[in-house]
């Protein structure tokens, strides 16, 4: 018998715990979303792609908890979130409209050991596909890739309605270079001077703007349930193995 405790694969990473967080910055990210910077002194850092739970408590003890992807892959102490308002939601309208610097909330994390990218795990190229606010964990991966100087080839295909709906536009543009390529698809309206098509992504456009299956990329897809299911189906039809496609759907009450 071994005395070593049993744990899931990769359990050496920081253990999830509840932390007190203080809001240090709130800025508008898109017309419907805000970027929140949280000071979390006890935060152990997180892997790129991980998420956390935010818990809010009302004066009468009522609590509401929601999951959000972490936009930062920082070593510790600071957490950046980008929160899109869900119409008629209970938590996101509070976070996007009411929250301000100095406010305190509780966060539980880091969470998720599967939908993550680790620098240096292998030399296979990485294809990211994001729909709307689904770019948040993929931005964290691209930023971690840029920050560590990892030489793996990265490509991000980002589908947004209009230019102003894009998250982390400036940061993503600044990351582009020999080892990071960015393709944006506008489904409703494109920026002035845009030469490409405007409209919903189709399988042909997906094939044209992603790393081909022959290069055996690892793929990460994040967006609404409908977006993720459509993209994952097309990627398999384009020859990618199901085991190479990692998905994260968001939604829920």
């Amino acid at each position, binding site marked *: 018998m071994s005395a070593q405790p049993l744990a899931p694969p990769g359990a050496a990473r920081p253990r999830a715990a509840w932390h*007190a967080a203080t809001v240090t910055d709130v800025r508008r990210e898109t017309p419907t979303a805000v970027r929140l910077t949280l000071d979390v002194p006890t935060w152990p850092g997180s892997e790129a792609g991980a998420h956390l739970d935010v818990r*809010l408590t009302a*004066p009468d003890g*009522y*609590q509401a908890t929601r999951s959000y992807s972490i936009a930062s892959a920082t070593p510790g102490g600071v957490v950046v979130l980008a929160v899109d308002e869900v119409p008629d939601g209970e938590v996101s309208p*509070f976070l996007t409209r*009411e929250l301000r610097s100095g*406010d305190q909330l*509780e966060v539980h994390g880091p969470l998720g050991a599967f939908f993550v990218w680790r620098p240096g795990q292998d030399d296979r190229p990485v294809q990211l596909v994001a729909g709307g606010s689904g770019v948040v964990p993929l931005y964290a991966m691209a930023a971690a890739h840029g920050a560590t100087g990892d030489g793996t080839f990265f490509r991000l295909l980002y589908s947004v309605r209009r230019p102003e709906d894009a998250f982390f536009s400036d940061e993503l543009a600044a990351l582009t270079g020999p080892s990071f390529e960015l393709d944006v698809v506008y489904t409703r309206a494109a920026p002035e001077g845009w030469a490409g098509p405007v409209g919903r992504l189709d399988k042909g456009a997906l094939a044209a703007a992603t790393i081909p299956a022959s290069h055996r990329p690892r793929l990460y897809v994040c967006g609404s349930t409908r977006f993720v299911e459509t993209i994952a189906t097309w990627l398999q039809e384009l020859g990618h193995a199901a085991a190479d496609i990692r998905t994260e759907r968001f939604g829920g009450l």
Partner: protein
Amino acid sequence: MSFVTRGFSGRRRDDNPRLPPGQTLVNDWPVLSAGPTPRVGTAEWELTISDETGADHRWNWDQLLALGVEDVTVDIHCVTHWTRLDMAWRGVSLDRLFENVESGHDFVMAHSYGGYTTNLPLEDLLDGKAWIATEADGEPLDPEHGGPARLLVPHLYFWKSAKWIRGLTMMPDDEPGFWEQNGYHFYGDPWKEERYW
């Protein structure tokens, strides 16, 4: 270690005496789903009541409606804390369906297309307390809301009102259904806040 976040109150909770404890008023109709939504057409739909003799009582769609459809206005209380008041339904009273069922058993397991189950005492299904509902808010029931037909037992939490109902099986003892096996209360009276074991 929980602490209050400034300015957060959550959804309004009010003191309306028609709201059971811990419930919040809603005006929409939230969709809850524990799995893929079964798509069952009225042409293939069938309801079976099975008793201890092994005899089955069966109704197809037209036979169900021929038993007599009635209008019901009731309050709906979901264990996920929402309540809708004065909701208009149409359906067939379970008193009609049980008229010719002879059973010595006191409990019923409701079975749905898709595999969902929930347990109820027989007496909670009789005497004008429960229906096989086919319409709500003046429209045929959407598949998302349990169409073509769902159980309607408004005096218990709404998970007892099984969507996509296809059968009722008589049981000698109170055996737990899907949520009742997994933490929820066997009976589920919203006024006693019987949410969990």
